[in-house]
């Protein structure tokens, strides 16, 4: 028997030398596609309304976001319980919107400015009055492209 040598037993181990390569490839993919949340919400996270006729916002860099919602319960003593507007990282007033949009526009080339969109992320319980004030402020400074941010979903969730 020993003349023919020992017979190998079991399956040969799979070569895992290329495993790190595969994992790194996936890693780079996710690293590139990840966008870190840029602004922290100061207000309570708005519950966006649902809609079916939605359009995707392209060119993320050309979008400036205005959050509208109620202040957090612990901050309501300071800010009151009405609708609050958040620009960048702090709660602001209607009069600050013009400066906010101007500072966003400064980051871009003049020829890109007409394509800039303002995305309004408002809570479903907000009053239309607040939204209208924002609209008027945007109209005054000629930032006319607006998107009311929504989720895709059932319309019945919008009205309580």
């Amino acid at each position, binding site marked *: 028997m020993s003349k023919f040598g020992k017979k190998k037993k079991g399956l040969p181990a799979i070569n895992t030398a290329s495993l790190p390569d595969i994992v790194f490839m996936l890693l780079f993919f996710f690293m590139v596609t990840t966008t870190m949340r840029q602004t922290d919400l100061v207000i309570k996270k708005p519950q966006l309304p649902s809609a079916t006729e939605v359009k995707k916002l392209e060119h993320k860099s050309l979008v400036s976001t205005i959050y509208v919602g109620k202040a957090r319960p612990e901050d309501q003593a300071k800010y009151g319980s009405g609708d609050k507007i958040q620009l960048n990282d702090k709660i602001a007033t209607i009069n600050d919107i013009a400066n906010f949009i101007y500072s966003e526009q400064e980051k871009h080339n003049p020829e890109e400015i007409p394509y800039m969109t303002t*995305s309004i992320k408002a809570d479903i319980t907000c009053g*239309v009055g607040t939204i209208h004030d924002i609209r008027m402020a945007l109209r005054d400074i000629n930032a006319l492209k607006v998107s009311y941010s929504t989720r895709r979903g059932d319309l019945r969730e919008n009205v309580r």
Partner: protein
Amino acid sequence: MAQKETPEINAGSMADIAFLLLIFFLVTTTMDVDSGISRKLSEKPPENYEPPVIKQKNILEINLNRNDDMLVEGERMKIEDLRQFTIDFLDNGGGVGKPDESGPGEICDYCNGERRDDSSDHPNKAIISVKSDRGTSYGMYITIQNELLRAYTELRNRYAKNHITGDYAGMSYDELLLLLGNDKENEVLKAIIKEVKNAYPQIISDAEPTK
């Protein structure tokens, strides 16, 4: 003296480290794209601007009060009925359209409506005016906007299916938009979409909310 070789670094744990990073990015990645109802605001009118007189029958008036009730043309209406009512209004085609550079206004030959005298003349003259209260909830407001947009989309889909000839015949407006999303430089497609949009232009105005 025997030469000492530098020992090879064990790369066995490389995969573990990479996995750790991978899982971190997997968890933090948000793939959601911001989407919403887009709207172009009207420009600020110059001072002393006199708004043109618009015939009452060309305006569909929608009122929302602070309890989220809806009045359409002065009568209570349920949200489910708004879309059909809007379609009937836009598609009425009771008169002639706006005059443009090609000549005087024409009769809407693609409209399917009843051509009543007390409803809109032509889709390009029909204006929808949404007047809300400052206390109307934003959710209700968006619901109404969405229903109005659905009415427009339905009419545009129908127009595209019946009146577009050539390579894109028989396709709905939604399908054309999808195609354009994949092929943004296609000038023929752009022209067709513009034609469909012009057939049923979106004229939705937001009136100053009541206090």
